[in-house]
């Protein structure tokens, strides 16, 4: 049996169990935040990086679609305005920080920590209205 090991997601900053086989350049989806990540080998260390072969818009759309799919959430007509807000945040502050939070810190990278920790279950939606139960 292959020993499963944990690997670090640079988007949600969580170590998760790697189920896939290791292969340089292989794309996988973080099971915690839905980010699309690319495998990279550095010496005997394996790392995951954000993809460089897709636009920022494609990256965040895939991430939010994957996260919604993983959790069984859906979107509504607010989605496009929020994609726009996330892209503006990226242009101004260098990452996909929540468009409705003032602090541009790792915890607020979409899907933010509050959303990953169950805000949608509690309130029926995430704070900014991107993910709905």
């Amino acid at each position, binding site marked *: 049996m292959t020993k499963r090991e944990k690997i670090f997601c640079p988007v949600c900053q969580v170590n998760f169990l790697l189920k896939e086989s290791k292969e340089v350049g292989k794309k996988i989806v973080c099971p915690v935040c839905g980010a699309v990540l690319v495998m990279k080998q550095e010496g005997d260390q394996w790392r995951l990086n954000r993809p460089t072969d897709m636009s920022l818009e494609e990256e965040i759309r895939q991430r939010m679609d994957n996260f919604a799919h993983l959790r069984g959430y859906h979107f509504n007509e*607010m989605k496009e*305005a*929020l994609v*726009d*807000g*996330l892209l*503006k*945040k990226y242009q101004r502050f260098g990452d996909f920080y*929540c*468009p*409705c*939070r*003032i*602090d541009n810190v790792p915890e607020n990278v979409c899907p933010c920590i509050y959303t990953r920790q169950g805000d949608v279950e509690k309130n029926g939606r995430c*704070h*900014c*209205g991107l993910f709905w139960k």
Partner: protein
Amino acid sequence: MKKIMLYALSTCPFCSMAKKYFNNHQIAFDSVDVDLLKEDEKEKTINEVQKISGRRAFPVIVIDDEVIVGYDELQIKEALEK
């Protein structure tokens, strides 16, 4: 007439919906896009918002003395009718 203050972010759709709500109902209100303020003014306003709402998330709507955190039409209506 009630005094209304809307603290918003330019990137936040619920903040735009709150502005639209007051405009559509022809209700006079003051608003500020906190993220577009100059650095020192921004810090001051964020501290104000945190003091009022206990959070650093938007929108925050103050209707007279009532504080509404997030966009909730029902809560806005109730505060306006008081």
